C-alpha cells in the first residue's frame, strides 16, 4: 500500500481493436520474430531497447523517458485462459472479469460502488466518450459519460448564454421532486437532477484549466486532456476512463503505417498527460493504465495481422515500480497457442487486483471474482 497526498485516482485508456503487442514491446533478438513477420518486423536498428531482450516500437520514444525514470510498468504475456478472438467478447471479458459467462457488471462499476457506496459524489467515476463501456456499468452507480468536456451539458443546442441559462433553470424546476406522479417518474426526476448537477460541476473544469502543454487534436489527445482537466478541477473523481476510437487498433491491413500513427499518438498523448499533471503538481495520486482486448497473430498476413491472444499493457505513475512484469511468451511454433498466437502467462485479473488493493485500497476478490496472484508493480 502506498501513501498519496490526495486520494488515489485510476485513469484508464482502453486501446480498442487489439493492439499488436509483438510490434509494441518487441522481442528484438528473437529469430522467430523476424521469421514470422517478413513484412512487419521492425528493423533492429530502429527499435528502442529497454533491456537485453525487449525494445519499444520506434514511435514510443516519449514513453522511454518514463521507463528510464522507473515509473513505467510493462506487462507482457497478459491475457486470460481460453482466449476469445472476438473484439466485443474479449473486451467484455476485460470489462467484467467473466470469461465463462456473459457478465453484466463492470469491474470499475463495482470499484466505484465500494469507493462511494451511497453515491454521494455523482462524479466519482467519469467516462470520456459516448456511451458507457461495460467496465463502468453497475446498477445504482451513477457515472457521467462525457462526449466533449468543452460542450458537455444539457440542452447544449440552445444558443445564447442567457437563453440557455433560462432553459436550464426551467429544467431544474421541471425535474425537482414531484409528488404523486409515480415511482418511475420520481426516479427520472431524481436522475435528471443528478445529471444536471454533474453537468454543472463538470462544465467548470475547462474554464479553470490553464497549461503550457498542448495535447494532440486526435480523439485520444482530447479525451486525455479532458481527464487531466477533470482531475485538476478537484471534483473528487477517483476513476477516469476513456477508449480510443472505434476499433482503431484492428490492423488487419496496412498495419505498418496505421499502427505507427496510433502508437505515436498514444505515446505523445501519455507523455503530454503526465507532463501536464506534473506541471500542476497533481501527478502524485494518479496512475494510468493502458491496455487492449487482445494482441495479434504471431505471423503477419503480408499487410497486417489478424486477431490474436496474449498482448501487452502498461501502468504509468509516480508510485509505479517500473519494470517488465510477466514472461514474454515463446514465439517457438510448438509453444504457441492454437492458431498461431501468443500464450498468456499473466492474468489481467492479477493486474486489476493490484490496482484495486495497492492503489485504490479496495478488496479485489469480490470485484475481479477470485483471488489472483498480485503483481507488485505499485509501491
Amino acid at each position, binding site marked *: 500500500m502506498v501513501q498519496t497526498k490526495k486520494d488515489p485516482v485510476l485513469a484508464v485508456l482502453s486501446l480498442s481493436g487489439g493492439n499488436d503487442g509483438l510490434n509494441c514491446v518487441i522481442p528484438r533478438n528473437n529469430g522467430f520474430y523476424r521469421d514470422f513477420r517478413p513484412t512487419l518486423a521492425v528493423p533492429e536498428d530502429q527499435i528502442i531497447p529497454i533491456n537485453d531482450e525487449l525494445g519499444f516500437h520506434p514511435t514510443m520514444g516519449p514513453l522511454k523517458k518514463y521507463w528510464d525514470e522507473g515509473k513505467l510498468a510493462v506487462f507482457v504475456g497478459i491475457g486470460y485462459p481460453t482466449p476469445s*478472438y*472476438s*473484439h*466485443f*467478447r474479449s473486451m*467484455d471479458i476485460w470489462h467484467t472479469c467473466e470469461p465463462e459467462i*456473459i457478465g*453484466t457488471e463492470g469491474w470499475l462499476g463495482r470499484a466505484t460502488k465500494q469507493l462511494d457506496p451511497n453515491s454521494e459524489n*455523482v462524479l466519482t467515476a467519469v*467516462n470520456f466518450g*459516448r*456511451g*458507457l463501456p*461495460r467496465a463502468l456499468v453497475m446498477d445504482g452507480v*451513477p*457515472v*457521467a*459519460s462525457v*462526449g466533449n468536456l468543452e460542450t458537455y451539458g*444539457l*440542452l*447544449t*443546442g*440552445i444558443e445564447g448564454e442567457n*437563453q440557455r441559462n*433560462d*432553459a436550464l433553470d*426551467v*429544467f431544474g*424546476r*421541471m*425535474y425537482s421532486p*414531484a409528488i404523486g*406522479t409515480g*415511482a*418511475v*417518474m420520481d*426516479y*427520472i*426526476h431524481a*436522475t*435528471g437532477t*443528478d*445529471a444536471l448537477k*454533474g*453537468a454543472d460541476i463538470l462544465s467548470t473544469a475547462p474554464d479553470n484549466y490553464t497549461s503550457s502543454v498542448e495535447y494532440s487534436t486526435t480523439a485520444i489527445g482530447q479525451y486525455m486532456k479532458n481527464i487531466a482537466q477533470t482531475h485538476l478541477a478537484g471534483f473528487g473523481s477517483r476513476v477516469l476512463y476513456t477508449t480510443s476510437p472505434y476499433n482503431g487498433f484492428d490492423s488487419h491491413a496496412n498495419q505498418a503505417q496505421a499502427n505507427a500513427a496510433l502508437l505515436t499518438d498514444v505515446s505523445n498523448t501519455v507523455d503530454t498527460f503526465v507532463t501536464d499533471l506534473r506541471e500542476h503538481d497533481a501527478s502524485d495520486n494518479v496512475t494510468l493504465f493502458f491496455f487492449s482486448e487482445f494482441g495479434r*497473430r504471431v505471423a503477419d498476413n503480408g499487410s497486417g495481422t*489478424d*486477431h490474436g491472444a496474449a498482448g501487452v499493457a502498461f501502468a504509468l505513475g509516480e508510485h509505479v515500480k517500473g519494470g517488465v512484469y510477466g514472461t514474454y511468451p515463446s514465439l517457438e511454433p510448438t509453444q504457441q497457442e492454437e*492458431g*498461431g498466437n501468443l500464450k498468456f502467462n499473466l492474468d489481467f485479473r492479477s493486474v486489476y487486483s493490484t490496482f484495486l488493493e495497492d492503489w485504490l485500497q479496495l478488496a479485489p476478490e469480490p470485484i475481479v471474482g477470485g483471488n489472483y496472484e498480485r503483481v507488485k508493480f505499485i509501491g
Partner: protein
Amino acid sequence: MAEQDIALMAHLLRRAGFGASRDEIEAKASQGYDSVVQELLNPETQEAVEEDLLIRYNPSYYEAAAIENNVQQWVWRMINSPRQLQEKVALFWHMIFCAGHSKIDSGQEMGLMVDIFRQDGMGKFDDLLFKLSTNPGMMYYLDNTESHKANLNENYGRELLELFSLGVGMDEGFNYSEDDVKVCARAFTGWNVAPSYPPFPHGRSPWEFRFDPGDHDYSEKTFLGETGNWDGSDIIDIVCRQPATARFLARHLYNYFVADEPQIPAWRLTPPRDQAAIEAMEKAYWDSDHSVKAMLEVLFTSDFFKDEAVRYAKVKNPTEMVVSLLRMTGEFKGYKPGLFELSQEPKYMGMDIMNPPTVEGWHTGREWIDSGTLVERINFASDILGNTELDGVRILVDRLMGLGDKISPEQFVNGCLDLTGPVVVTDDTMGQLISHASKEGDLTHGTDVEQSEFTRRSGEMFQMIAATAEFQFE
C-alpha cells in the same frame, strides 16, 4: 378532425410503428383507425422498403459482413419502411430472442437472424421457434453447437424454455423442471452449423444449419409429461401447446406494445397489470392456432390498448427514441449521409442494437434511464426537435404560426405539445413551460424580425419539451 382521433392515431403509430410526422398522423386518422390497423397487420399489402436505394448509395451494404453495416441498414429500414409493424415486431423478437454480435462476431449472421424476425415474426409461433432453433447464429450463441449426444450442453435447451417460450413460471408455480431442461437439450443434439466454428485462422464463410444424425440422441424422452422419441421439432410442438406459452407471449406483447410491466424474472410471482387483456390475447392464440398476428389484432383493436391510461405508460427504448424523432421530422427519409453516426445513437443511450448485453436482453422500462443515458436522450431529442432548419421542424413552426396572428404563451405551449406528440404533461411541467414562454410575452409573426423571433422561440420550446421527463415515455 377531432383531437381525440389524432391522439389515438398518434398512440397507435408510436406503438405499432416508430411514430410518424404530424401530416401522416392526420392523414391516417382520416383514413380510420381500423383500416390502419389492418394495414399494419398485413405488411404484404404495403410497399416494401426501397432497399435498393440504400444499396445504390452504399454498394458495400449488400450482404455486408460488418456489424456496423447491418445495424445501419436496420435503423434505416425502421425509419423508411412503410411496413412499420413488421420492423417493430422484428425489434420485439430481437429483444426476446437475444443473441449478440459480441459472441457471434458476424454482422451478416445477425442480419439474417433479424430477417427471420421480420419475415416470420407475426406468423405461427411454432414456425418462428423452428426457424430460431435452426438459425446458425442462435445455435452458436447458445452453445447448441457444443451440445453432443455424449456430452450435453444444456444452454439452448434451458433458454428455449426459460426465455423463449414458457418462462420460469406463472401463477406462482413453475412451468418446467430441471429434467425437462435436460430432455429438451437432448432433443436438440445434432442440430448444428456448417462450417463449424471457430473460423480462425482462415476467416469465415456463411453458416448453414446442419443436422448431424450421428450426434443426435435418439433415445426415448419424457418432456413435460409426454413420452416419445422427441427431437427438436417435437419439443417445439409440445411447448407451443402449453398454456404457459400463450401467457408468455401475451405478457411480452403487453409489455412491449401497451405498458411497462415488471421485469420478466418477476412474472412468476407478479400477476399481470391487466389480467383481462392477457386473457383476451391468450384466447386469440388458441383460437387462431398460435398466430402472433391474431394476438396483435386483439391487442390493437381492444379498449385496453386505446385507453388513455396506457398512453405514455412505457419508457421509450433508445431505438424508439431515435427512430421516432427522425420519423417525426422526416429526417433520413430516403438516403442521407451520416447514417453511421446516427446508428450509434441508440448505443450511446444504452441499447447496442444487435448486441444485447446477455441472452436475457436489455432491462427495459425505467432501467433505460441513468444519469449518462438521460443526458444522451435529452440532448439527441432536443438537438433534432430544436433544429428549425430541418424541413420537418420548419413545418411544425409554420403550423404554429397558423394558430393566429398573435398567440398567447398558453396557446403557444399547448400548440408545441400538440404538434410534437401530442405530448401529455403534468400540471407542474405545463406551469413551468408556460411561465418560461410568458417571459417573452405573446408571439407574433407579421414582420421578418417577428418571424425569426417566433422561429427561435419555437425551437427553444421544442427543445424544452424534448427535455421533459414526460418525453421519455411513449
